[in-house]
């Protein structure tokens, strides 16, 4: 794992965390894409032999710290999401664009499902149905998001 690879992935994750806490108007908060989750899914599908469960765990843990949620909540959900992506990435690589987006939606939904499970298991207030809007927005965003990051990877010549 080269230094440049490490910096690129940290940079993209940093931007994702930044976008997660960037203030938005109240009506738009429910539609905020799951930036960090999308970033991890991209890196796992692009470099499955280097980025996996542990990177996902790290991204989730830092997300917990940055957003002030229960420490370990996103670490757990991201780990499970990372594992799922590692297992599915061979298939995702062969899919058409819309099939890819659908499988990304499935993966992100599992991530939210695990978060929801932890929230209710720890007696915290559980959100309503609007909780799932973000997965749809993220799915619609995925083709452009992946294209952008692919271009970045190519431009920075990350190997």
């Amino acid at each position, binding site marked *: 794992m080269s230094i440049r690879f490490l910096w690129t992935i940290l940079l993209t994750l*940093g931007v994702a*965390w*930044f976008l*997660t*806490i*960037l*203030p*938005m108007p109240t009506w738009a*908060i*429910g539609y*905020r894409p799951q930036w960090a989750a999308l970033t991890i899914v991209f890196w796992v599908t692009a470099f499955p*032999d280097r980025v*996996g*469960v*542990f990177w*996902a*765990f790290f991204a*989730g*843990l*830092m997300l917990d*710290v*940055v*957003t*002030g*949620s*229960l*420490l*370990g*909540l996103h*670490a*757990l959900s991201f*780990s*499970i999401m*990372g*594992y799922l992506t*590692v*297992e599915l990435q061979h298939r995702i690589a062969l899919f058409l664009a819309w099939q890819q987006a659908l499988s990304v939606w499935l993966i992100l939904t599992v991530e939210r499902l695990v978060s929801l499970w*932890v*929230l209710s298991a*720890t007696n*915290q*207030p*559980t*959100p309503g149905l609007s909780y799932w809007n973000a997965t749809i927005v993220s799915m619609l965003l995925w083709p452009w998001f992946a294209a952008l990051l692919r271009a970045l990877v190519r431009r920075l010549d990350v190997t």
Partner: protein
Amino acid sequence: MKPLFNRGPSAIVRLVMASLVALALIIADLHYREFDALRSGLAVTLYPLHFLAALPSRLARNIENQVADKAQLRAENKRLHQENLTLSARLQRFDALESENERLRNLLGSAFKVGERVLIAELLQVDLDPYRQQVLVDKGTLSGVFVGQPVLDANAVMGQVERANPLTSTVLLITDARHSLPVKVNRNGLRSIATGSGLIDQLNLLHVPKKADIRVGDLLVTSGLGGTYPPGYPVARVTEVSIEPGKRFATVTAEPTARLDRSHEVLMVWSLPRLMEEGAVTDAGGVGTASSQHAVLEP
């Protein structure tokens, strides 16, 4: 060249390891305070992110200040001047009442302490976890902030410090579902506990008897019983009292008087007992009077 066989543990083993660590972190965060050091360590490395995210709104406010024209400033100045006058007029009366109250309490021999030191902190406008009622402020342990410190705004109690990092701290608002504070009705001293509802504009009062004398519009103030909040600060106003035959207690909801979703600046409060513990009463801005020290020394 990609190796044919992956070295290191397989994905499922990694998943089990990561999940176990995550579960341990969840349990530790729920039950043990010792792990807060880990969180604040990580938070320091992420401070630039918070700073950057809060920058646009801070800049917007600066620009707003810059471009405010003369007439506007003059109008605001006038308004503030009038407000200052009315407040100082009220304060004169209050000073007299306070000293009288203290004298009477000293006569009674009760250990009542008044006087606080405050620090003005600015909110960092960042979106935290949307399912928790918490805000980030720009003062941390380097400024003397401690966990459990009460936080007020100009109108009322906002919440308490939940986590204090060196440069920032997270304030748990009184409306968070995990937060409760002891209150009393200002009109008659009826005590209750106000629990957050998870909604920004609603508090629930627990265990209010059906026949209790509580009405819509009553002001709730801190009773000081929990030890976290100084007594006598306004908290909320009762908005609804409903008595249902099937329930053992009356259902009482209240609306916080603090502007929880609109304040830019907050006051971090050091109450006098805490200051005395630290031996910092001398720089308490003249509020630690001899009589109140006396009250502490002779319980």
